[in-house]
């Protein structure tokens, strides 16, 4: 068993400063994950040369892969810090250096914390909600059949971590593709008996520039999704619905 873990972290102190890499060597404990590893550094923020530094900034909240805030590049791949186990990241001999970096397609706020506002803006663009806010009592909601619930439940597991967008070859600042998460949420709310009232709006929104058509079906999203959402199925279903809506609009509007 190794006594220490070697970590290399890509850091930057502000959105505009240039990134630097700091190396750390921290004591090993069984069952560590990246969250506890970053906690160890925060306890004693001294790099491998003995130089004192600052604790690593990163977004986190629930520490159990449900809030979606701690996504980062761990050994180059987008994953959640809280569910990434150190023992699985140090190679067969448990001596390899772990590298941490912020998600590469989102603007860095500081260190490993990035600004994922684009996802929330996209969710607003497709009205990913059930419109029940009124000034009067709307009464009981429409009945939802268990069969529909079962289809919707996996899509409701999205934690907005943005891993699906980070790994997507089409999600970049040229295409400005909307990303799988938003498309899946549009499907989730289109299938809601009350949310379906906005279904046409969502489908029209997804046909805009950067919409569902930019998907290249590399299927990285569904591989990377920590919550196992059926993202490719959602994109396929929504692709059909968006197309049908466009044809309807062509002839009826």
């Amino acid at each position, binding site marked *: 068993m190794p006594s220490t873990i070697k970590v290399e972290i890509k850091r930057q102190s502000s*959105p505009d400063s240039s990134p630097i890499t700091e190396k750390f060597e921290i004591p090993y404990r069984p069952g560590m994950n990246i969250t506890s590893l970053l906690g160890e550094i925060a306890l004693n923020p001294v790099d491998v040369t003995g130089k004192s530094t600052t604790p690593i900034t990163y977004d986190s909240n629930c520490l159990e892969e449900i809030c979606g805030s701690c996504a980062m590049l761990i050994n*180059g*791949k987008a994953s959640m810090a809280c569910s990434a186990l150190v023992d699985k990241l140090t190679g067969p001999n448990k001596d390899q250096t772990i590298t941490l970096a912020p998600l590469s*397609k*989102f*603007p860095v706020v500081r260190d490993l914390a990035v*600004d994922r*506002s*684009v996802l929330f*803006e*996209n969710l*607003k*663009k*497709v009205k990913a909600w059930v419109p029940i806010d009124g000034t009067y009592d709307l009464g009981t909601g429409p009945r939802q059949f268990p069969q529909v619930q079962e289809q919707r439940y996996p899509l409701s597991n999205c934690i907005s971590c943005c891993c699906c*967008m980070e*790994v997507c*070859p*089409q*999600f*970049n*600042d*040229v*295409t*400005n*593709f*909307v990303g799988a998460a*938003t498309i899946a949420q549009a499907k989730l709310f289109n299938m809601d008996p009350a949310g379906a009232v906005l279904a046409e709006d969502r489908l*029209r*929104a*997804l*046909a*805009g*520039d*950067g*919409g*569902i*058509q*930019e*998907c*290249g*079906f*590399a*299927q*990285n999203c569904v*591989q*990377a999704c920590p919550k196992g959402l*059926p993202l*490719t*199925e959602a*994109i*396929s*279903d*929504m*692709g*059909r*619905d*968006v*197309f049908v809506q*466009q044809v309807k609009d062509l002839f009826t509007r």
Partner: protein
Amino acid sequence: MATAAPPAPPATPQLRGVQPLRAGEGHSFFWRRLHSLTGIVPIGAFLVEHIISNFEAINGPLAYAQQVKFLNSLPLVRLLEWAFIFIPLAYHALYGVFIAVRGRSNVNVYPWAGNWMYLTQRITGIIALLYIGQHVWRQRFSGVMLPEHPGAAFAKVQHELSNPWMLAIYVIAMIATTWHFAYGIWLFAAKWGITPGDKARKRFGYVCAAGGAGLCLMGLISIYAFVGPKYQNAPEDVMPEQPAGITLPAPENPVSGSTNPAPSSLQQ
């Protein structure tokens, strides 16, 4: 009655990096779906027709010439050629390059099967574009004009493939093009919501792979018909200009045993 104006929706903040969806703006959905559709019809349909027609080469120069003559005798053939082959092909190719340069492949980081196929679809598309460019120029628009001289088709292709480099280019392009077509059909079904389920996509993947492999094999066999030993040194033109007499009416007094019918009363 005073009605309060609904609160203005909050303006989209200026973000760095990847920009949010331009909901309902632009026409890229139409152009992108048109690109997808043209790949199936007419381009994909023509590819299948082309490979089947060329497969006649295994029956020799005359059979091949008859295929070329048949296709060129279709009504409005030049219009068909431009409307259903050249223009859709040019659009599919140019928009395809536009799509390819906008992607940021990351198979080095995420070496997953679908990701490789994403990259392969772009590479095979570029190979097919380069190949088809030279193929259309050299076989359709330069050298012996096959629409007027269908009999020269076999020899023209045979001369082309006698160059080993060109042969290699044809073999590579055949594999790349049928690959691009087969995966293109799979992508079409996935993106247009025909095969949304994982199982459906997997099953349809086998169908596409089998179909693509079959087409590719037919194409490679056709290539072999030109370079193999069977039809070496094919005649330059198996349908030479006919002598003028051939169009005259049948002779009035056919020799005995002739299959020519007796001349009709009109001819007499």
